[in-house]
């Protein structure tokens, strides 16, 4: 049973079978299948799947409860990785779930072009996403939407750290009035490791159950600052190289990704360089033009990205650097270390930032100790794109940075 308590407009629920040490997928499935059947009265229910483990597990769970009454949508937002649409189609069909693709690339780009602020981009994305989904769901005769929202999604949104594209009701959005459907979120109490256990139990292939988290807004939240088709294209290529190189490591980092930002730098201030130099002799520290999301003391921090240039050093030896920089300038939320480029040798418009972290539950995280030679080899590949001038590695833990960039 769900026990629900309300606080300042949002809801906290705690399910008895979730969050226990020995999470029991069988008991969870039994409880939730009954719950879904009791709540859903009409025959047809929609779910938006991304191919991520949360929505895949949710779809498989709902399929048990509703059978053919479940309609699986996949939104092509234009912020997907190369080959992602085909991959997701294949992944879901292995679970017996046919996919309806919603092409909406132009609508998203039109709504987002020219916007630079991370929160405003997330809000516009969410609005467009649910508007398109609402239209499609109504056409299919569905008035209930299932979502694979999990615990960290609403915990972060409740604290105002970032707008999750899939958190609505917890923030008091009336989905019936606004988008024309009711929401059902059976995974609200689960953490990532428990969702993976659930997906495995429901028969998902290993590439589905162990799939890396990929945010709902996709590459959009890794496109720091303004969005353009070109910028997304650069990021898509860089992402492919980064996933190939870091994914081949054994063990692979828990999460690895690329982000893109304009190569526009300004000097750091005060004692930042002096403090950084204590760890990296002759370090040069500059600030990038656009801000990134962080989290400091349970509050959202939207702050500066510092780029550190210095002699070749193993990244693991520089993991203490962000602390020094942040102590000198409290507006910094992220410190990245230059791996390749930036010495005037190559003219390009964009900096690619590589991030890899180790984490249990994504509530906290630390940077992965990737060897410099691996990063350099990967950077060479990324630099083959003429539009990229510099490749950096992110040295920041969570907190003060978040895992994603916006």
């Amino acid at each position, binding site marked *: 049973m769900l*026990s629900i*308590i309300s606080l300042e407009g949002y809801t906290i629920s705690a399910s008895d079978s979730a969050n226990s040490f020995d999470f029991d997928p069988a008991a969870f499935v039994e409880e939730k299948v009954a719950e879904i059947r009791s709540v859903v009265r009409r025959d047809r229910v929609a779910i938006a799947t991304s191919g991520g483990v949360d929505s895949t597990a949710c779809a498989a769970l709902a399929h048990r409860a509703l059978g053919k009454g479940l309609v699986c949508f996949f939104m092509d937002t234009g912020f997907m990785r190369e080959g992602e649409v085909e991959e997701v189609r294949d992944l879901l069909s292995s679970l017996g779930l046919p996919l309806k693709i919603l092409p909406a690339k132009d609508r998203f780009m039109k709504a987002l072009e020219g916007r630079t602020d991370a929160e405003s981009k997330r809000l516009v994305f969410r609005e467009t996403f649910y508007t398109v989904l609402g239209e499609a769901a109504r056409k299919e005769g569905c008035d209930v939407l299932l979502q694979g929202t999990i615990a960290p999604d609403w915990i*972060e949104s409740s604290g*105002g750290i970032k707008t999750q594209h899939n958190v609505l009701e917890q923030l008091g959005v009336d989905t019936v009035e606004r988008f024309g459907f009711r929401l059902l979120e059976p995974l609200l109490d689960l953490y990532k490791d428990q969702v993976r256990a659930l997906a495995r139990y429901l028969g998902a292939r290993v590439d589905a159950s162990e799939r890396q988290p990929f945010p709902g807004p996709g590459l959009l939240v890794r496109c720091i600052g303004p969005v353009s088709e070109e910028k997304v294209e650069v990021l898509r290529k860089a992402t492919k190289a980064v996933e190939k190189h870091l994914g081949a490591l054994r063990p692979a980092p828990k999460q690895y990704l690329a982000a893109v930002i304009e190569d526009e730098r300004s000097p750091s201030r005060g004692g930042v360089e002096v403090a950084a130099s204590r760890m990296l002799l002759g370090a040069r520290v500059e600030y990038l033009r656009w801000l990134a999301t962080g989290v400091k*003391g349970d509050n959202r921090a939207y702050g500066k990205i510092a780029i550190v240039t210095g002699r070749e050093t193993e990244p693991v030896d520089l993991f203490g650097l*962000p602390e020094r920089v942040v102590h000198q300038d409290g507006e910094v939320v992220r410190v990245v270390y230059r791996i390749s480029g930036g010495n005037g040798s190559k003219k390009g418009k964009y900096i690619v930032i590589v991030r890899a972290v180790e984490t249990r*539950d994504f*509530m*906290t995280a630390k940077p992965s100790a990737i060897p410099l030679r691996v990063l350099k080899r990967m950077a060479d590949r990324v630099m083959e794109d003429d539009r990229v001038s510099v490749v950096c590695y992110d040295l920041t833990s969570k907190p*003060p940075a978040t895992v994603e960039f916006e």
Partner: protein
Amino acid sequence: MYIPVVFMGGQYNHLIVRALKELGVSSRLVMPNTTLETLKGVDGLVMGGGPHSVYDGMDKFGCVPEIIKKAGFPVLGICLSHQLIGKILGGEVVKGRNPEYGKTTVEVIEPDDILQGVGREFVAWASHNDEVRKDGGRFVVLARSEYCEVEALKDERRSVYGVQFHVEVADTPKGMIILRNFIGVCKRG
């Protein structure tokens, strides 16, 4: 054994419940307006972190100040709640000159209490702008770090504890030992 967790609005509060359950204790989130009367019969209480600041005014924290003053059961306050305990026990809470975000190294001063078994130094994850200063407060300082002079404290008279860092996150590897020690305190009553 039942040890509820007061939800103070922080991102990790839910993880405290999860950690307590992993240690075999029954737990759930309760709201800050939960009264001492309602908490009758609990074996102990943990209070989480949150986005507010102690010097925003005590009215933001519901019954929590009252609970800290009068609880007859063991209490563990984390982050913001640690600061509330420090303040109520007569210490000072100030904006930290060097706030800690992420990894910090905690140095143990009193090794025989809830920090038993964690070594002389241990790695912890913290995320705070404010910090507690002793300033004549009626508590014992159990641990400190390079940037924060009160990382852990205990009421001079009762089993009321505070920790500035987050015992409940996976990146504080010794956090579960500290929680287990606190559960031990609750068992002894």
